[in-house]
């Protein structure tokens, strides 16, 4: 908190907390598990589909699978359905690659009214940008640690 709270404010915070119905954490966890699991199952089915009907191996079937999931997620976002599913599924739809696609598509749609360059282009990564920044940074840190450990004679 940027501002120190007075005693009066703390008392009120307690009262407000008491009246706050709170997020239904257990229900949210269960729904997130089911929704996230369903998306993973769907991903597995798509992956098997590509391996079975096309010339993909288990190693490289991931690429078209992710592309398919991104396409479906963006389509549902464009049709105005994804946010309704997400209100129900919570982290289940945010964490997988579908959530990332939704963040980009929804921002792009939202800022279409400001034109393609300053609107769509400039705002597309408004939400997804920090995922990329910290994702790349985390990968750099982990890779550095790995290099150091290997340099010290680890395997």
């Amino acid at each position: 908190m940027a501002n120190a709270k007075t005693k009066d404010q703390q008392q009120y915070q307690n009262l407000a907390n008491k009246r706050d119905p709170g997020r239904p954490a257990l229900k949210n966890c269960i729904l997130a598990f089911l929704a996230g699991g369903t998306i993973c199952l769907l991903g597995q089915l798509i992956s098997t589909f590509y391996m079975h009907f096309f010339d993909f191996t288990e190693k490289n079937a991931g690429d078209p699978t992710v592309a398919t999931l991104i396409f479906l997620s963006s389509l549902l976002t464009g049709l105005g359905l994804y946010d309704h599913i997400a209100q129900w599924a919570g982290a289940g739809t945010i964490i997988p690659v579908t959530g990332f696609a939704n963040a980009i598509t929804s921002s792009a749609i939202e800022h279409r009214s400001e034109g393609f360059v300053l609107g769509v282009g400039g705002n597309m990564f408004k939400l997804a940008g920090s995922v990329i920044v910290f994702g790349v940074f985390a990968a750099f840190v982990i890779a550095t640690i790995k290099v150091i450990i290997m340099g010290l004679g680890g395997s």
Partner: protein
Amino acid sequence: MLKGRTWIFDHEAIIAASSAVGGPFEAQGPLAGDFDLLFDDLWLGQDSFEKAEKKLLEQACQTAIRKSGIRQEEIQFFLAGDLLNQIITSSFAARTLSIPYLGLFGACSTSMEGLALAALMVSAGFADRVLTGTASHNGAAEKQFRYPTEYGAQKPPTAQWTVTGAGAAVVVSSGKGPRITSATIGRVIDKGISDPFNMGAAMAPAAVDTIKTHFQDLQLSPTDYDLVLTGDLGKVGHSIATELLTKQGLIFPPGVFGDCGLMIYRDDQPVFAGASGCASSACVTYGHVLNRMLQGELKRVLIVATGALLSPLSYQQKETIPCIAHAVAIHAGEESSR
């Protein structure tokens, strides 16, 4: 006349006509019949939510002017405000209406800020016909204050749903209609709530402060009003406000103390803790409440519009949410208040 923080309007300030317009989601609510216009398209045929919000305000203003029977050129001043950056909705609507204009910002308390100032101008003799209005749009508010409308972020049960709508009223110095008798100007109150998804709890103390002051300044008792409505406290804020008022000794008879944010939508509409936005208090007051007053069902009403004076920048910088509430008392037609 000034008493404490309350203006008592010694000369007539009459609401000649008012109007409420809403969007498709409001059309499904229990107050649908009280709207003058309901649009079945969230975009109102425009190519952006911001333009749709401007159209809502223009429609509300033009409808109110038409119902008042006064020609648009005869309206002397236009007082309006909204939630968008630099209050573009109001200024752009004023461009269309071409009426001398003062822009207001009181967030969701703007409806009563505008009505109080309109009554002040008319009662003090500085104007005879003043138009006041405000608007909000769900999509435009989400875009500015929260996430893109199609973004899949899960909202907590304390979140509120911004009303897509607008309300306007024409205040005149003589004629028939409900009379604005007094107005209490709010102080900015900040009890340290910083969660923008719990605006009801943030705004409740401001509403309580203004209500308490209004009753003290005018030495009224809770039975002096048929209806006391806060603007958009929602379930959480309303229950906190009720508890705080009870502690202060202001216990209203059942059914008297309500919240506009709990009236616009049905219980099964997915609006979380209730409605919010400038249009919450504006649509309910300028539609439902004034209709009931004209039908003689309500005689004395106090509207306490509540506003959260935050910006998207201020809460990202971890600032708490300063809030305000303005109260306006409206008495039905002929009956004298004093």
